[in-house]
Structures are given as C-alpha cells and as structure tokens.
C-alpha cells in the first residue's frame, strides 16, 4: 500500500467524502420518515418514535455513526476546499465557469458550510432539548371525567397518571421522565418527553415562529442544491460510472435532492400556517 493511501491521498479523501455523504443521505431518508409523523401521526405516535430513537441500541449506534459522518464529512470537505484553493494561488481575471459546469457543483463548500450552520442550530433547538433540557415537558392529555376536566400523564406502559398526584406530591418526577411513588421511593412508571409539543411551540411561537419557519425552508433549499450535485457525484467518486446506469443514478439523485428537502420543508410550513 502506498503511504497511508487510504487516509491521506487526494482520492482517499474523496472516497470518505462520498461514503459519508451517501450515509448522510440514508440518514436524511430515515429522519424524514420520522418527522412526517408530525403531519400524519398524532402526538403520542411522534413521541413514541422519539423515545425509540433515543433509546434503541441499534438506533443509538446509527446515531453515533451519523455524528461522526457529519464531523468527518465537514472536516474533510473543508480540508479539500483549502487544498483546492491553494492549488491556484493566482486567480484568473476572467472566468466563464457557467459555460462548462453547474452552479451547485462549484459551490459545494459554501452550501455545505451553510448546512453545517443549520445542523448546529437545529441540534441546539431540538436535539439538546430532547437530551439535556431539565424543563422538557412530559406528554399529557386532557380528559373530561364528567365532573370537570382532568390532565393525565401518558405513560410508556400505555397507561395514564393523573397530574394532581404529582401536584399533591404523592408522585415525584425523577430523571426528567421517571415517576416515583413518593412514600415508598420506588419507580412506578415512565412518561414521554413531549417533543411534539416543543416542536409545535417552536414553529408557532408568536415572535420567532415565522422566522424559524422561513430559515428552515431556506436551509432545505441549500440542502437541495448540495444534493443536486452531491448525490450523483458520490457515485463518480467511488468509481461507479457506467453509461448503462448513469442516467438512472442521475435521475434518482435529482429526484432525491428535490423530494427529500421539499418534504422536510413542508413540515414547519404546515405547523406554522395550518396546524392548530
């Protein structure tokens, strides 16, 4: 093997770019399927899905691969871009790049950096709340008991727990989601973190909801352009270029690049403008 060919050479960097990029495409598809429950599912389904995503060991493993992929893809992408800039110290006075290449293909680093900014804000807004926020609400429902309305916690065993029992200190909440019998100090049930509520509140916020929605939609445009070039490009980087299948890869890539960000973008638009 040539000197650390698999990590350091120009081509190796490209393989990693392509592999992490394609893995992130898979991640996007999965993430989208989950998010679409914000439109097509109810709050419980969405929160159950969120619980599954944060606790299932296989999913946890996948999520670590995703974090690493994003980091690796971003660092590798920036390294490549810096090297590429250095490869032409004196620029041309006149360039007619649009005559020979697509805009997205020439602006992958700018698009990628914008996506990185989006990912960070997105994680602060949702991921960090889900994982660390002590004030993360637990999901409740209101039911009419005949003698007035009562608020109940939904619990992971499919049961309910009246909120008054927590208010009367008969039950204590520990570790953000666990219900304990206060007297006996034993765990009786688990609640659902209400990510659904947080998400709706975020995009329906009177002050920032509209800005957040617009920013989200813009980010999805950026993602679409990144993928319009990136998807098919990754196949070329990995050496998959065969006239028999190129048309298929390109069409699928274009479809993926448009449909996935579009569906992502519809969700906050729906929440802000149409959902109650």
């Amino acid at each position, binding site marked *: 093997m040539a000197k650390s060919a*698999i990590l350091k050479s120009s081509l190796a960097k490209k393989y990693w770019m392509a592999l992490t990029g394609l893995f992130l495409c898979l991640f996007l598809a999965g993430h989208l399927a989950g998010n679409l429950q914000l439109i097509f599912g109810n709050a419980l389904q969405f929160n159950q899905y969120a619980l599954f995503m944060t606790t299932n060991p296989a999913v946890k493993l996948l999520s670590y691969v995703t974090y690493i992929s994003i980091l690796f893809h971003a660092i590798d992408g920036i390294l490549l871009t810096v090297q590429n800039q250095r490869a032409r*110290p004196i620029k*041309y006075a006149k360039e007619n790049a649009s*005559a020979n290449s*697509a805009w997205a293909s020439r602006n992958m680093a700018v698009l990628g950096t914008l996506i990185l900014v989006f990912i960070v804000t997105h994680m602060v807004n949702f991921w960090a709340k889900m994982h660390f926020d002590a004030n993360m609400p637990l999901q409740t429902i209101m039911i009419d008991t005949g003698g007035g309305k009562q608020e109940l916690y939904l619990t992971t065993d499919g049961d309910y727990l009246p909120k008054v029992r927590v208010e009367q200190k008969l039950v204590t909440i520990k570790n953000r989601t666990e219900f304990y019998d206060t007297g006996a100090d034993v765990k009786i049930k688990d609640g659902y973190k209400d990510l659904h509520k947080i998400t709706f509140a975020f995009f329906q916020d009177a002050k920032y909801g509209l800005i957040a929605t617009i920013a989200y939609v813009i980010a999805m445009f950026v993602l679409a352009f990144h993928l319009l070039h990136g998807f098919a490009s990754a196949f070329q980087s990995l*050496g998959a270029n065969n006239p028999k299948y190129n048309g298929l890869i390109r069409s699928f890539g274009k479809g993926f690049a448009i449909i996935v960000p579009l569906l992502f973008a519809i969700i906050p638009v729906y929440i802000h403008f149409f959902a109650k």
Partner: protein
Amino acid sequence: MKLTLKIWRQKNAKETGKIVEYPIDNVSPDMSFLEMLDVLNEGLINKGDDPVAFDHDCREGICGMCSLFINGEAHGPDRGVTTCQLHMRMFKDGDTIFIEPFRAKAFPVIKDLVVDRSSFDRIQHAGGFISVNTSGNTIDANTIPINKHDADRSFDAATCIGCGACVATCKNSSAMLFVSAKVSQFALLPQGKVEAADRVLNMVNQMDAEGFGNCTNTGACEVECPKGISLENIARMNREYLVASIK
C-alpha cells in the same frame, strides 16, 4: 475585425505580471487564434516592443503544446479544439478578449503566457508506461487478442495530448482527467494490467506531490478538453486506486 486584447504580461518566473491592453485591427475571421497573436507580435516587434510569449508547436491540434485561457475558458470558447485550431470567426468585431496563461500552482508561469507543464512529465515518469524487455525476442503486441470495446476505450484515453486544459479549467486545478486518461489507456489493455496497481498508486502519489487540487466532479474538464476525454476515466482511476490501495 477590430479587437481589444487584454493579455497577461509577465517578464519572467519571478516578477509579478499584469494584464496589458492591446488594440488590434485587420484581423481576418479565417485566421487561427495563434495567427492573430503572430500578427500582434509582428506589430510589437516592429515598434521595438517585447513580443508576447506563448506556447505552440504543431499548430494542427495534435501536440498539446499550445495553451491559453481565452475569455475565461481553456483553449477558448470553441469545443473539441486546441487554441491553434480555434478560429477568429468564433469572435465578433469589436470584442474584448482576455488572454491569460493556464493557471495552477503546479503550472508556474515562465514568461507571459508560457507555463511550465513538466509536472505532467513527472507524473508520466512515475508510472505512465509499460515495462518491456527489448531483448530481441519481444512478442508482437498484436498477437494478444483484445476485445474491441476495451481497445476502443483505451484508444480514446490515449488521445489525451497532455495539454493541461483540464487543470486550467478546473476550479480546483485538479489534474485527474489527465492522470486518469494515462492510467486508463494502460489499465484497459492486457499489457498494461501487469503493472496496473503500482502505476495508479505512483501516478496519483506524484500528482498529489505536484500540488494539483482534488476533483469535485464539476465536469468542467470534460467539456473543455480538446480531445473529449471522458469522466469515465476518472471513475476508472478511482476504482483502480481503491482496489490497489486495499490490496
């Protein structure tokens, strides 16, 4: 035709250059671009000025010596031609034409529009050949059967004239179209397969050492290449390199 030329002038490799404007008239649309520059230089010499230095040799599109980045494109606005085969009818009377050297760290300017492309030679020396013992009983290459499909693609790759337009055009100054053409022309043939793994590792290694950038698959090189070398070659090089580096 009357034209305004904006030409990069640079005394030598060390000094910094700049764009200088030259008006020129009585240019015939039937002239080649290099003939137009010959006319300009004749005028400059008659005035006692330093003529514009530019590379050329065969002037029939086969040697790969001519270069020039013309109005933002390598070998100018025409497709599938080198600068010596570019004709002035591609331009309009009154046009302003920017003429710059091929720009890349690995192609330093020697003077005016002349750049040093010996980095390509060093990449070739690193593996762009097959080792044949010329001991007197060398087997005739034609006795080895080769399927037509591979022979054709190898030939297509071999039409690369090493001009460097791919590097000049690429926003990353990547030499991957050139290197992949040289890798492919051998890798597709039985005689070349013997040394294929070492060849691709060594040539890519040399390419990186020369300071060329990394391909981002914009496809600009394929469009501007005077010989229509296909991006399929880059994909083949990527495959060859991947297999060779895990072996």
